[in-house]
């Protein structure tokens, strides 16, 4: 299960969060934990450099993309390697939606499109699509290219 996807700006303010299977009373704990993890480790990190951590039986993969930080939390089959795959899909789709690695402003400008991308990538904690070109077409309600299949 992909338990959480969280995007913050570099100061740790939450821009977007999606939780699956985490009760609302535990969400604040996760927000604080993830943002602290980023504050401790992401300073000076290269763009899209992947970081990994584990907390009990839960895995976390996180990175910096332009002006935003992205955190993904998974458990069971979504271990650190599966999360790496998910992170790759998310970063490439966001870059695709924004045209480049987004600044915080650009990310917010393309907010609606990014929500649609995430909707195509993860559905209630399960990975659904993994190809950025296909996702680009799907969010415009266009069928994927037959060659991509």
């Amino acid at each position, binding site marked *: 299960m992909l338990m959480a996807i969280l995007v913050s700006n570099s100061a740790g*303010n939450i821009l977007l969060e999606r939780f699956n299977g985490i009760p609302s009373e535990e969400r604040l704990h996760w927000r604080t934990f993830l943002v602290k993890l980023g504050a401790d480790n992401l300073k000076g990190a290269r763009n899209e450099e992947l970081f990994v951590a*584990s907390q009990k039986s839960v895995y976390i993969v996180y990175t910096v993309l332009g002006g935003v930080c992205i955190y993904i939390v998974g458990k069971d089959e979504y271990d650190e390697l599966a999360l790496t795959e998910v992170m790759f899909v998310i970063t490439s789709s966001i870059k695709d939606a924004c045209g480049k690695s987004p600044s*915080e*402003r650009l990310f917010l400008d393309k907010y*609606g499109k990014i929500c649609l991308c995430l909707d195509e990538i993860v559905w209630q904690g399960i990975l659904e699509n993994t190809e950025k070109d296909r996702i680009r077409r799907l969010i415009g*309600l266009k*069928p994927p290219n037959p060659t991509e299949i």
Partner: protein
Amino acid sequence: MAQPLVKKDDDRDDEADYSPFMGIEKGAVLQEARVFNDPQLDPRRCSQVITKLLYLLNQGETFTKVEATEVFFAVTKLFQSKDIGLRRMVYVMIKELSPSADEVIIVTSSLMKDMTSKTDMYRANAIRVLCRITDGTLLTQIERYLKQAIVDKNPVVASAALVSGIHLLQTNPEIVKRWSNEVQEAVQSRAALVQFHALALLHQIRQNDRLAVNKLVSSLTKGSVRSPLAQCLLIRYTSQVIRESANTQAGDRPFYDFLEGCLRHKAEMVIFEAARAITELNGVTSRELTPAITVLQLFLSSSKPVLRFAAVRTLNKVAMTHPMAVTNCNIDMESLISDQNRSIATLAITTLLKTGNESSVDRLMKQITNFMSDIADEFKIVVVDAIRSLCLKFPLKHRSLMNFLSNILREEGGFEYKKAIVDSIVILIRDIPEAKESGLLHLCEFIEDCEFTYLSTQILHFLGIEGPKTSDPNKYIRYIYNRVHLENATVRAAAVSTLAKFGAMVDTLKPRIFVLLRRCLFDNDDEVRDRATLYLNTLGGDGTVVQTGDDVKEFLFGSLDIPLVNLENSLKNYEPSEESFDINSVPREVKTQPLAEKKAPGKKPTGLGAPPAGPPSTVDAYDKLLSSIPEFANFGKLFKSSAPVELTEAETEYAVNVVKHIFDGHVVFQYNCTNTIPEQLLENVIVIVDASEAEEFSEVASKPLRSLPYDSPGQTFVAFEKPEGIPAVGKFSNMLRFIVKEVDPSTGEAEDDGVEDEYQLEELEVVAADYMLKVGVSNFRNAWESMDADCERVDEYGLGPRESLAEAVNAVIDLLGMQPCEGTEVVPNNSRSHTCLLSGVYIGNVKVLVRLQFGLDGPKDVAMKLAVRSEDEAVSDAIHEIVASG
């Protein structure tokens, strides 16, 4: 530190790069949502408003029921628009709002229309939305379309239906299970993602059908799987098949070649999955393990942190069971100690601690000392636990490891970390006699400057038990008495009790202790004064060198032989009256934990948390429990209680396990029973034991369980007599007999009449190992040489063809039930001979040491030389008999 969690709109400093959502207000956005009701819809504007609503929801904002309903109804109007971008937003919005059952009806027809639309993308999205918001009744109406969608030519539609199936399986399994033919067809799809989703769903549908999963794996491992994700799933399912078939098939492991082949896959994800699956195989041999370890070793030096993490995490797990297999990676692992990622560094350190040999301990400790200063407490605790295990493995190294622990104890750290260190020192003191005095002094120094009251009191209590038994108890008094001057009332009271224990146990110290205790009579805290007064008046001798009576010691310091929970309950139920509270009226039966708590993990060795002296607390608890039952009270001292043996499979109606309690002339079976059916109450529960295959045993008593309600475990006992001091063995078959009464789930009340019923349990065996206590020695060679060589018995045995040397070693250890010493239970890779040292205490409290020398005789045949020394030559002979007949 964490940044404060401020919503973006509260952060107004950054004017230049202002947010498009600046100043966003839920109320205003809800007002704006009225544009959805305009007769002339403006798709662009509507999309913007939906984006704002999504922004609010994604920031954790919640809508009230009325607000959500209002927005939902407004959003449904947007189905009128033909704008594609807006339609896509509408789908997302409906999912986010997740309307209630009575509202769903409003969009059902629009979504049904989209689901049968000619536009593929409408179909896919409508399926996803409908499945998100639908309930069982609607599902039957759309089932036909969903089944068609699973085999749709368009992979997006097929994937949408399959992923919906995965979600719906949780809520409506009986419906989704009807789709297995279509899902089976989708598994063969050319589209990689469709195959991935179909495989996941098909496995979930058939996961309880072992044969079907086996067939699925067999066919797919031969064919081609198109995506690495699906390949990973297949590897997982293959491991499951291997696990389940392990007991039934002999010879080469099925599907191992497939797993090994996956180690050469081009996707890293697949390589890892295969390596992990191989390392987790039951009874994996070193030949099977080698290729997996080799690929993991390569990843240790990868430039990507995720790969390094995954590799070191897997190797860390392997090191727990096969430390020798991982030693080849030690050089790569050592370079990871300085890894920037602290999780990787900690895993590397703890792996090295598991795989290192005695000679490398000092070098490793040097590296760890530098490393400890820059990691967080949570990682430090892991390292401390690993060091404790290392010290127990190499007791001769206790000096340097104990010094390391005492050094880190002096450094800064939080409560949990300090507690972990103190617990470790306590465990080492208990298990390694040579480490006792230095360990106690380290603890004494620690309490001189300890900021945690809990730890100070626990250490003082421990000092009171262990200190008087040392060669020079005098030297601890100063540290203890300092507490009376310098600490808070709780610690002072604990210090007074500890002083009194020294006074009671060491007669020569008593006069001086009395002087100190008298000074405590002027303390400003009641509890401290009360304790001092009590001890001064009861220890006896008025400060002269006299012995304190045993009954006084028992009264003051003896353990309370009543479960505290029971005492607490009795006190709560006690109503103040003329009649005083009678402690003998407190029940002594220990209630085992209910189901939910039982599942909680955590089998760590306990330090100060458990009673600090004597055998482990469970044995103590069993001893008290059994002696409180009149039928078993005259059986004498309990020699050993086995670990619980399950007599039922997991998830059956009644869960029963048994603990074998061994006495000199008796054996008591304690059946722990749990009723997992809420609608039933069981009464007069007893196990009928057939001992026809255990000739030397005769049943003498049994104690039925009066009532066994749902999820509240209880115990029933059956006792057998056996020849005194003889390690009799035998097989027992068991039948659970009870009266079952129906329980009304709404009221929780049981019916008056019940029906007698029986439930067959698995067989149970009493084996030779049940008569052996696992008791280690810290220095085997010394212990061996100090035992009389006349009582040594040596013989040689052929163990026949074995899977590996390690398997043979483990089999003999299990047969004898003894404690392996100095890490000799681990057999190095590819070795053709091995020596294993065992120690234990045999029934009758006879110490036994065993030296086993194994050698490979031919390709698979294992030969063994067994040398036994014990305090009684008859016992040495008995050990040989066990091996000869095993």
